[in-house]
């Protein structure tokens, strides 16, 4: 299964490898683009769909590992498959820890590479999905006023309105109003739903409030 709008990038300084692998990808129905060096690739604008990158480890200029680091730093969602002329365990381990999909030795079996590509594209698609949800949740959370956000933070810890009012030094009635407005803005109907939304947004709650419980 090929996720829609997916694209495979191939970065290798060896022309034979570029030609062969490009053909292989095409024969398997993938769209691909090949680059001679990492810097050529970085000049291209970011692809807006699931993306997989097949990267040679050792290249003149920016090598594969450097490229991986650069992509992580820029929070890019391209998933990397490393290929190398010689298997090196330490480098392989390093690459995998940093989130590479796989690390293949040349010459590799065709299905081995294609499976890696498929896995990478799926992972890329998932990653994109996750990111979209998180961004959505964050946008909703941004609609809250600071007071509503404060109240909401305490609600998800399981406090009752009365407890929250005590915590914030205000009337229970006021808390109730804030809580209702926040729920409405976030388009949730239950506390359980509220908790899931905050989790999706990936926001960790302020420690201070917990300790005051």
């Amino acid at each position, binding site marked *: 299964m090929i996720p829609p709008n997916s694209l495979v990038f191939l970065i290798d300084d060896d022309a034979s490898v570029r030609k062969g692998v490009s*053909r292989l990808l095409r*024969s398997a129905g993938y769209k691909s683009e090949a680059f001679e060096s990492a810097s050529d690739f970085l000049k291209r604008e970011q692809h807006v769909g699931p993306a997989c990158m097949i990267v040679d480890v050792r290249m003149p200029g920016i090598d594969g590992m450097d490229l991986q680091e650069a992509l992580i730093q820029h929070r890019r969602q391209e998933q990397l498959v490393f290929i190398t002329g010689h298997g090196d365990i330490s480098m392989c381990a390093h690459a995998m820890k940093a989130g590479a999909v796989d690390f293949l030795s040349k010459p590799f079996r065709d299905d081995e590479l294609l499976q890696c590509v498929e896995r990478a594209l799926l992972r890329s698609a998932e990653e994109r999905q996750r990111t979209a949800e998180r961004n959505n949740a964050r946008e909703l959370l941004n609609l809250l006023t600071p007071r509503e956000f404060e109240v909401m933070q305490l609600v998800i810890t399981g406090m009752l309105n009365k407890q929250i009012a005590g915590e914030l030094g205000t009337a229970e009635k006021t808390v109730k109003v804030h809580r209702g407005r926040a729920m409405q803005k976030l388009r949730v109907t239950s506390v359980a739903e509220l908790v899931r939304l905050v989790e999706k947004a990936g926001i960790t709650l302020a420690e201070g409030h917990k300790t005051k419980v």
Partner: protein
Amino acid sequence: MNWVTVIWSMGSGACLTLALIHFVVWWKDRTARTNLVFSVMAIAVAAFAALELAMMRAQTPEQFGIAVRWLHVPVWVIVVSLVIFVRLYLNAGRRWLAWAVVGVRTLSLILNFILSPNINYREITALRHVSFFGESVSVVARGAPNPWMLVAQLSLLLLVIFVVDATIAVWRRGDRRQALMVGGSILLFTMAGAVEGITITWGFISMPLTASLFYQGLVVVMACELSFDLLRAAALARQLQASEASMGESEERFRIVANAAPVLIWMAGVDKLCTFFNKPWLEFTGRSMEQEMGNGWADGVHPSDLQRCLRIYTEAFDARQSFVMQYRLRRHDGEYRWISDQGVARYDTHENFAGYIGSCVDVTELINKDAELRESEERMRLAADAVNLGIWEWDLDKDEIWATNSRRALLGWPTSGKVGFEDFISCVHPDDRNRIQEAIDDAINKHKDYDSEYRLVLPDGVVRWMATRGSLHLNANGRPTRLLGVTIDITARKQAELETKQQRDELGHLSRVAAMGELAASIAHELNQPLAGITSNASAGQRFIDRGDVDLRELHDLLGDIVSDGRRAGDVIRGLQSMVKKAAPNRQQVNLNELVTNVARMVNPNAVLQSCNVETLLDPNLPAIEADPIQLQQVLLNLVINAFDAMSDTLAPNRKVVIATERNGHGTIRTSVRDYGTGIPEETRERLFEQFFTTKAKGLGMGLAIVRSIVESHGGTIAAENADDGVGARFHFILPVNGGPPE
């Protein structure tokens, strides 16, 4: 009073006056004997005149006779005076004639006083009075002339001959005025007097004797002469004074010049004692003129030089010869300095020896340098002989070769005598002659150094290998005039080279195999790239076919790529084989930069494995060199792999190998491999390039030894050092552009 008395008295008086003047002159200057003689003569002339007057006044024949007799006394004085005057004043006249005149005259004077009444008359019997200048004077009226009178006449004749002879001599000498004035007047007036006396005495005419007038004329002429002399003397004295003044001035000038001269100047008088030292001398010795005067200067001469110095000075002085001597002279600071002293005799304006003048210069530096030069020449000769080094020089203009004695002996040349280029080239092995000739021509035409190796065939037929280096010397116009150089016997080295060559080839093979083992990772990478291409293409082809969507053109390209990848893999394999097989060295034009780039690529996989960066720093303007590319590749591979090994303890981010090429000047290229490892321990550095020396657990100890043998077979050198910044080591080898000696 009457005229006769007046004239005769005045004449006498004038004579006496002149006599007095000249007597005073003589009195003041006793050397003026001429003046004394003149003075005496003038007195005699005065007496003569007085006696003449007495004759004229005589009343009786007796009185007359006595007067005549006494008249002969002043005549004798006049004659003798004249003779002496001529001798003294004219510095002429024959001595015997002079004596003859004086002798005969004296004889006549004696006869005069023996005979009665005198030599002129036998007897005077009567006088008579005649009128003379309005006065009545006595003359002989009757008397018999005395034949003895001829003696007196003879003396006058002799006087005339003497004076004529002297006058001619003076005339011939060139003093014509003197001859005419003095000689002429003496002749004229004496002859006139004599003729008058004879004619009167013999009674041819009757008149009183007036000869004193002639003699007075003579006195006047002579007085004039002497006066001229006095005037001349005065003029001379003035000139002398003037010239003395100018001499004083020139002496002053001399002193100024002497004091300004950059040399030390001394002067000595005829007595060998020094009379003058110029300022530089006095400043040099730091002593005063008074201290140095005479023999004072000798105090400053080094005691061990003094005797020799004085001997040379004295001997040269006595022989009036120039001299040059060296001695040590104490300087004002107490240091003895070597002085070169040159003395010459000096003469005054009259060419009279006036002493010596000398000039000295400080030659200490020269003498030291000279000694140093001799010493260093000697040292060099000894050193050259010790290492069997021949030193030679070829004068291009004269075609003359100078060579050390040992070299001449080796070539069988005589120890002395001219040797030219032909003599040399005939000693060179026939196969090498053209090459040598070309190398020398090249050096001369292109103004560069001469450097070559050749074989000499010695007189006993033995062939020896020589290495020679010469440098060209140009004259001021930039034209080559001399070729100067050294030659060393390298036969032993050549033989050793030959023997080690096979050994080295053998080892080279082993090392290539070893290097291949170490390069397994590289080889794998080189093969894996095309293999990855092949498998990918082939798989793609299969998939296209399986999908049933076969674009034939696509398939064609695909298969074409597979074929070229296959070839590429084949090339890699062949390259490996060439490394492994025992190939004969193959010299060709090699671009070191390309070679370095290739090696850098080859070792890249190893570098990746060891987390090491390989950088190259290439000089873009590198000339191609003549070398065996595979051998050089081996050298570089060895060095780079060693560099990797040296960095096993280095932190990964710091691991780096830098391969650099650069022109090294002198037609050589320097290639260096630098690592950032532990560096070379001092104790192993010296043994680094030895065979079987290794610091690696699994090492054979062959790598660097082979590397060195390869570099040296290319005429190059290799060395290792720790990097300047203290991190890691740098191996560098230097190769000549024109290739090493042919194998």
